[in-house]
Structure formats: C-alpha cells, structure tokens
C-alpha cells in the first residue's frame, strides 16, 4: 500500500472512531439523565453528529462514486428529520405528562414569561437576597 492508501485508512478510522465515541456518549447520556426531555438532548447529538462522522469515515473508505453520494444523502436527510422527530416527541411528552411542573418550570403562555422577565430586571438584587425558585432562570435571561 502506498502513502495515500495509508492516509485514507487513518483518516477513515479516525472519523469512524469519533462516531463510535459519540454513540457511546449518547448511551451514557441516556442512562445518566433522569427525565425524557433531558435524554432527548443526548440522543439528538448521536442522530446528527454521530452518524455524520461515521458516514464521513465510510465516504473516505468508499472513494469517489455514487455510494458516497448516497451516504451524503442519508446524512442530509437525518439532519432535516432528526429535529422534527425530536420536536414531535417533546410535544408528546408535554401533552401527556400531567405533572410536568415537577421536572421543569412550565409557562402556559409566552406573555407570562415575558412579564416575569420584565419584572425580574429591576428586582434582581431582591431576587438574589430572597433566593426564589425561579431565580436561576431570570438571571439567565439577564446575562443574555
């Protein structure tokens, strides 16, 4: 094997290894987090970055032909489809969970959130002294 062949092998192996590490991280995240909406965060990474780096490794192995183009098409399709399926799954969880407030802060309307943020701006010092529950969120909005 020439130098080019070795370079191709090393580059492809590197990308495939990155993909496998990301898949492992995904599984770790799914077992580490405690709630579905957090777990989805970990799986979305594998759906986009994990499969795309695996496919790039396979593209390097495959060379310059139609198989490479099809592999690219799979990656592009998953980049479009994965956010949509995550969104639909989140809607399923929010629609069917009756005590969602136990896991995260729920704002029924966007207007309530905006009002709360507007109120939190001048009273930030008071909020820090009182140590209220939504203190972390309102300061997060402040720092932009």
């Amino acid at each position: 094997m020439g130098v080019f062949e070795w370079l191709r092998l090393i580059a492809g192996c590197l990308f495939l290894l990155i993909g496998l590490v990301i898949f492992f991280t995904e599984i770790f995240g799914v077992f580490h987090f405690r709630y579905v909406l957090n777990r989805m965060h970990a799986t979305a990474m594998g759906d986009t970055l994990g499969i795309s780096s695996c496919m790039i490794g396979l593209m390097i192995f495959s060379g310059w032909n139609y198989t490479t183009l099809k592999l690219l098409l799979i990656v592009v399709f998953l980049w479009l489809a994965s956010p949509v399926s995550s969104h639909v799954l989140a809607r399923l969880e929010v629609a069917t969970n009756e005590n969602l407030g136990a896991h995260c802060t729920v704002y029924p309307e966007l207007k309530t959130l905006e009002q709360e943020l507007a109120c939190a701006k001048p009273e930030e010092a008071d909020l820090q002294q009182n140590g209220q529950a939504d203190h972390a969120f309102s300061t997060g909005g402040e720092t932009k």
Partner: protein
Amino acid sequence: MLYHNLYITILVILAVMLFPCLIRAVRGPRIADRLVSVNMMGTMVMVMIAILALMLDEGYLVDICLIYAMISFLSVVVLSKVYIGIYEEKRHKAEHPEDETEGGKSDGSF
C-alpha cells in the same frame, strides 16, 4: 483483509452498543423514553447497514439504509401522533362519560 477486519470490529462494537438501548427501551418509565431509545437504535442500525454495504461491496444496501432512515422517522412521528390522540380521547371520555359518539369526531384532529 485489513478493511474486512476493521469493518467486523466496528460492527461488533455497534452490536454490543445496541443492548443498552434495548434495556432503556424496556425499562423506560414513559412512552417518550421508549420512542427515543428506538430512534437511537435506528441510528445505529443505519450505520451498521452502511458498513455492510461497503464490506460486501454492494451499493444497493445504501439505498436500504436511506429507506430505513425514512421509515424510522415516519414511525416516530406517527407513533407520537397516535399516542397524543389516544391520550386526548381518554381524557375526553373521562370528562364526558355520557356521549360515546363524540370519539369518532375527534379523530380528525390529528
């Protein structure tokens, strides 16, 4: 031969990684947990099919991989919509136990 051994190694690693996803799909406390893990398994199987396509040198297996991606996406979307519909119907029936014919109408919403 070198490439063959490499592909076999990666396939074995991916096959071992499928078992934790299966455990999460069985143990998941909510339906969304199960759907998320099934989606994750689908992603790994897609990589496995793509590796098989290169290992066996059969280009058409990549088309099967693309169709697998589409069916996996479709199944997640359809199952989510179906479960939302079932939940709405159950809640509607619990709130209004007297009218049974109303359930047929609410199917059009999803």
